[in-house]
C-alpha cells in the first residue's frame, strides 16, 4: 500500500523524521521499504497482511499510526447536500445473490459535469500509483484509497431500465470490461447487471458500455460489500486482479460501505458539480452485528510468556478503536468496523503483542520433560547412504524435480518403462517444467554437461531425491512418491602428472564396486545380472537385485544417449530405487570376534566356457567350499592365446579358516579338491595347470 505522507498527515500527526516513522511502522509489521519520493510527495510503501483490508487505506494506516503514537485520528470532514427528489425513484437495485453480496448501496447524482480533476487529487492518485481518468472516476478511486472501500460509478442513463441486478453470470454471457477486453463469464462469477445484461464484474472491474464519459450527466454510484472468497474466485477465473478485487477478496466489513459512499458523493459534488438525490438505495438484508470478544487477561501471559499490565492491554485496544469493558480478569472487547481480522481471543492477544512490542517479549527456554531428539529411521538411513557415497568420492548434486517429458526421450527411455508414467502438473509455470521427474539420472546428466562445458573434469555426481510416478489405474491421478539415487561419473578417478589414463579412468567395475560398497555398508545383500536397458551400452548394462527384486539399473551410458546430452567420452550411470534399498538397510552394528586361528590360503585357477557368468563360478566355489571357505577373491581374468579356444581362465585366491582351531593344510586341500570336483561336474570347468 502506497501512502502519500501528506495525505496521512491530514488525519493524524506523523513524526517529522521519515526514518523514525518507518522503524516504528516496521515494528508493527509494515515492512522496511524506505520512503519514496514522487515529485514533492514523500510516499510510504507499506506491506499489508492479507487479513487487513482496513490497512489498504490512508485512514486505516492513520488509525495504526494514532495507536502507535497515542494520538487521535481526525476523519475527513465533509457535508453531503441532498436534493429533495429520491434516489429510489430514479433507479432500482435487486440483489439476487445475497451470499455473494451482503450489502449493495447506490447513490444517484444528477447534473454532473465530467471533466478533469483538480491538481491536488491527480497528484495524490499518481503518488499512490493510480492514473487519473476523469473527475468522477477519480473520486471513486480517491475515496477507495482514503477509506479502503472500492466504489464504482455507472452512467445511469446507459443502465437499461435504470436498474441494477446483482446476480451470477449466465452461461455464455460476456462483458467488455473497462480495459477494453471482451470477457467470457460463467455462473461461478458474480456480476452487476442492468435489466438486460451484465454491465460489470462485481468487485473486480466495471464495463465499458456504462462507463462515465464526457456526456455523462447522471451517475449511479455503487458502494457494496462482496463476499471475499466469491470476489477472489471471480477475479481468479478471469485472471484479472485490480485494486478493487484486492480489497474485496480480503472480506471488507459491510458496515463501512455507507460512510465511504457519502464521502464520495460529497466529493463528486465538490469536483464535478451535481446533486445527490435523497435516500440512497441500501440493500442490506442482514446487518452484521459488531464482533464482541472476551479476552481473559491471564491468557495473554500464557500465550506470550510476558505479563502485560492490565491497564496497558485495555489502553492498546482502546487506541485501536475497540470498546473495552472490564469485569474481573476478563475484558469484553467490541471490535470497531473495518477490523475484520479480529475474531477471537488470540487475535486480540496479537494486537496487544504488536503494539506492546514483540521486542519486549523475553527469551525463555521451554522446560518440559526434555528428551533427546532423533531422526526418523528412514532419514538416518538416507543420511548414512549419502555419507557412503561421499566417502566413495562422489559429489552431491541438487537438481530440479520439475522436468519436461522430452528429457526421457533424450535419455532414450522405452515407451513402456514405468519412468514414462509421469505425473503432470495442472498449472505449470514454464514450458520445460510441466511434469515431476520420474528418474534422477537425466537431471544429473545435464549437470555433467554444464561442468564439462566449463572444462571442469572429472565430474562424479550423485543425487538423492524424490521421484514420482503416476500410479497405474484408478480414476484419480494417484501419485507414487519415493526416494531415488542417481549416479553419473565421467572422467578419471584420480588425477596427477604422468598418471596413465587407462589406469585411472572410471570403468563399469568402479561403478559396480561403489554400489557394492554402498549396499555392503547398508548390510543389504545384492546380486547383479546382465540387463537390456535401452539407455545403457548393450554389453555393459546391469540390473541390481535385492531379495530377487529389481532395485536399480546401472552401467555405461549408451553412446547415443550420451550424444543427445552433448556428452563426449564414456559416462557411467546408475538409477537406484533408494526407497527399496533403505527399506532393507540395517544400520545397527555389533562386534564380531576377530579370527583367532591362522588361515590357510590356496589359489584356484580354472578354465570355464567364455560366456559363463563369473557369478556362477563363484556360487559353485562358495557352495562346495563349505563353512571353512572364508574368502573368495577373484584376482585374474584371462582370455587369449594361452587359453583354449572359447575358454576363459579365472584365478581366485581362497582363504580357509576354522573358527575354533588351526586348520591343517590337508583339510584345506580336501576342500579345494571338492571345489575342483564341483566346478568340473556342474560347470565343466577344467583346472589350469
Amino acid at each position, binding site marked *: 500500500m502506497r501512502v502519500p505522507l501528506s495525505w496521512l498527515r491530514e488525519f493524524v500527526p506523523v513524526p517529522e523524521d521519515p526514518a523514525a516513522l518507518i522503524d516504528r511502522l516496521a515494528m508493527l509489521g509494515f515492512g522496511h521499504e524506505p520512503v519514496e519520493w514522487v515529485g514533492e510527495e514523500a510516499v510510504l510503501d507499506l506491506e499489508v497482511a492479507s487479513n487487513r483490508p482496513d490497512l489498504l487505506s490512508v485512514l486505516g494506516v492513520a488509525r495504526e499510526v494514532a495507536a502507535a503514537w497515542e494520538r487521535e485520528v481526525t476523519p475527513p470532514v465533509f457535508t453531503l447536500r441532498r436534493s429533495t427528489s429520491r434516489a429510489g425513484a430514479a433507479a432500482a437495485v435487486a440483489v439476487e445473490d445475497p451470499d455473494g453480496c451482503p450489502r449493495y448501496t447506490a447513490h444517484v447524482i444528477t447534473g454532473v459535469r465530467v471533466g478533469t480533476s483538480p491538481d491536488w487529487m491527480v497528484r495524490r492518485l499518481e503518488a499512490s500509483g493510480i492514473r487519473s481518468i476523469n473527475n468522477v472516476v477519480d473520486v471513486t478511486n480517491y475515496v477507495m484509497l482514503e477509506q479502503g472501500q472500492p466504489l464504482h460509478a455507472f452512467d445511469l442513463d446507459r443502465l437499461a431500465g435504470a436498474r441494477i441486478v446483482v446476480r451470477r453470470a449466465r452461461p455464455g454471457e460476456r462483458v467488455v470490461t473497462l480495459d477494453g477486453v471482451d470477457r467470457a463469464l460463467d455462473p461461478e462469477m458474480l456480476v452487476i447487471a442492468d435489466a438486460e445484461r451484465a454491465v460489470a464484474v462485481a468487485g473486480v472491474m466495471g464495463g465499458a458500455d456504462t462507463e462515465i464519459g464526457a456526456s455523462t450527466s447522471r451517475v449511479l454510484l455503487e458502494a457494496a460489500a462482496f463476499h471475499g472468497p466469491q470476489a477472489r474466485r471471480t477475479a481468479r477465473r478471469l485472471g484479472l486482479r485490480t485494486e478493487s478485487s484486492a480489497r474485496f477478496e480480503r472480506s471488507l466489513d459491510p458496515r463501512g460501505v455507507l460512510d465511504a459512499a457519502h464521502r464520495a458523493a460529497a466529493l463528486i459534488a465538490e469536483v464535478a458539480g451535481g446533486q445527490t438525490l435523497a435516500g440512497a438505495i441500501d440493500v442490506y438484508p442482514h446487518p452484521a452485528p459488531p464482533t464482541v470478544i472476551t479476552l481473559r487477561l491471564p491468557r495473554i501471559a500464557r500465550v506470550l510468556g510476558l505479563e502485560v499490565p492490565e491497564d496497558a492491554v485495555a489502553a492498546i485496544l482502546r487506541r485501536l478503536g475497540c470498546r473495552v469493558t472490564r469485569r474481573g480478569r476478563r475484558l469484553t472487547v467490541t471490535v470497531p468496523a473495518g477490523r475484520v481480522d479480529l475474531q477471537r481471543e488470540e487475535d486480540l492477544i496479537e494486537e496487544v503483542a504488536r503494539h506492546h512490542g514483540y521486542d519486549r517479549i523475553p527469551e525463555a527456554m521451554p522446560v518440559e520433560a526434555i528428551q533427546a531428539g532423533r531422526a526418523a529411521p528412514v*532419514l538416518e538411513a538416507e543420511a548414512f547412504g549419502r555419507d557412503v557415497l561421499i566417502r566413495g568420492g562422489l559429489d552431491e548434486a541438487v537438481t530440479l*524435480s520439475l522436468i519436461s517429458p522430452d528429457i526421457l526421450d533424450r535419455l532414450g527411455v522405452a515407451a513402456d518403462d514405468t519412468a514414462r508414467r509421469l505425473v503432470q502438473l495442472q498449472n505449470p509455470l514454464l514450458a520445460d517444467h510441466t511434469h515431476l521427474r520420474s528418474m534422477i539420472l537425466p537431471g544429473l546428466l545435464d549437470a555433467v554437461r554444464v561442468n564439462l562445458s566449463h572444462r571442469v573434469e572429472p565430474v562424479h555426481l550423485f543425487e538423492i531425491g524424490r521421484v514420482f510416478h503416476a500410479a497405474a489405474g484408478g480414476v484419480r491421478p494417484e501419485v507414487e512418491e519415493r526416494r531415488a539415487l542417481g549416479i553419473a561419473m565421467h572422467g578419471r578417478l584420480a588425477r596427477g602428472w604422468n598418471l596413465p589414463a587407462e589406469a585411472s579412468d572410471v570403468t563399469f567395475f568402479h561403478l559396480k564396486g561403489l554400489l557394492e560398497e554402498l549396499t555392503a555398508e547398508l548390510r543389504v545383500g545384492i546380486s547383479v545380472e546382465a540387463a537390456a536397458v535401452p539407455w545403457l551400452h548393450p554389453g555393459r548394462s546391469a540390473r541390481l537385485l535385492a531379495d530377487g527384486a529389481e532395485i536399480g539399473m546401472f552401467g555405461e551410458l549408451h553412446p547415443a544417449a550420451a550424444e543427445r546430452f552433448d556428452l563426449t567420452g564414456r559416462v557411467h550411470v546408475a538409477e537406484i530405487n533408494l526407497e527399496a534399498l533403505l527399506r532393507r538397510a540395517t544400520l545397527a552394528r555389533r562386534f564380531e570376534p576377530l579370527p583367532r586361528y591362522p588361515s590357510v590360503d590356496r589359489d584356484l585357477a580354472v578354465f570355464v566356457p567364455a560366456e559363463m557368468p563369473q557369478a556362477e563360478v563363484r556360487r559353485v566355489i562358495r557352495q562346495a567350499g563349505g563353512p571353512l571357505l572364508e574368502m573368495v577373491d577373484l584376482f585374474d581374468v584371462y582370455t587369449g592365446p594361452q587359453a583354449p579356444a572359447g575358454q576363459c581362465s579365472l584365478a581366485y585366491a581362497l582363504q580357509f579358516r576354522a573358527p575354533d582351531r588351526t586348520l591343517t593344510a590337508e583339510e584345506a586341500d580336501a576342500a579345494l579338491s571338492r571345489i575342483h570336483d564341483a566346478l568340473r561336474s556342474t560347470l565343466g570347468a577344467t583346472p589350469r595347470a
Partner: protein
Amino acid sequence: MQDEIARLRQEAEHDVVVAETAGALEEVRRIYLGRRGRLAVLFDRLPQLPESERRAAGQALNEVRAQIEERFRRRAAVVAGRDRSAQLEQERLDVTLPGWHRHLGRRHILSRTVEEVQEIFIRMGFDLVDGSEVETDECNFEHLNIPRDHPARDTMDTFYISDELLLRTHTTVVDARIMRERRPPMRVLAAGRCYRRDVVDATHMPVFHQVDGFMVGEGITFADLKGVLLAFARQMFGQEARLRFEPDYFPFTEPSAQVAVWFNDTWLELGGCGMFHPRVLEMAGIDPERYTAFAFGGFGDRVVMARYGIPDIRLFWENDLRLLRQF
C-alpha cells in the same frame, strides 16, 4: 704354518677393507671363508702337521676365522649401509612436484547447511520426521486454517496435480500431519523441498528448501519461541547473533512474526514463526485451552545464501563444481 696363518689374516683383513661393494665383499668371503677358500685349505692341512704343532695351529686358525668373520660382518654392514644410501640417493624425488589426487566427495552446500540446521534443533530435543512432497490440498491448506479462496493462498501460488493433490508449498504441512498422529508434548522438525509457482529470479525458484519445526506442550509461549530460535541462531551464526521479531500474518499462527538475524552487518530474514492458531490445534484434535504451541518455518535456501554470501539462488541448482568445491 703359523706364518701362513698370519699372512692370510693380514691379506684377508686388507681385502675385506678394500671391498667397496656387496658383490666384492661376497667375492672376498668366498676366497677366504668359502668351502674351498684359503682358510678351508689351511684347515685341511692340519692333519698333516706334526702332533706338537697341530693343536696350536688349529687354535690359531679358529681365532683367525673368527676374526675374519668379525671383520667381514663389520665391513658388510658398512657396505650395505653405503649401498642403501646409494640406492636411496638414486630414488630421490622432486618433492615440489604436485601431488596426485584421489577425488574427494563433497556434500552439496545446500543439503549440508540444511542438515546443520536440523542437527541444531535435534540437539534441542526436536525429532526429525519424514514427509512427502506431493500433498493434499486438505493438509497443505485446510488443516492450516487456509480455506479455499483465502487470500493467503496468493502468497503461496500452488502447483496442482489434481483438484485434491498438489506440491506442498511449505513444510508446515508436515506439522499438520504429525500433530494429528502424535499426542503432546512434542517437538518436531521437518525439512525438504517445497514448490511455489514463483517466477525465477535471483531469490526465487519454483523449487526451494524449508525447515519447519514446532513444539506443543502445556505452557509453551511466544517467549519460548524466541528463546529456541535465539539458541539456534547463536549456534548457526555465532554467539553474537541477534534476532528481530516483527509482526507478520500467517493464517495458521496467531500471533505471527517474521524473524530476521543480524549477520554480516545486515538483517537477514530467516522465516516466519508464531504461536499455532487455536483453530489449527483444534483441527488436529489438540485442546488449545490446555496446550499451546509455537511453530517456525523457512530457514532454508536463504540461510545458506546469507551465511556464505551466495548472491543468486539459481547457483544452487547448476551444480557447477567450481562453486560446490568452494565449501
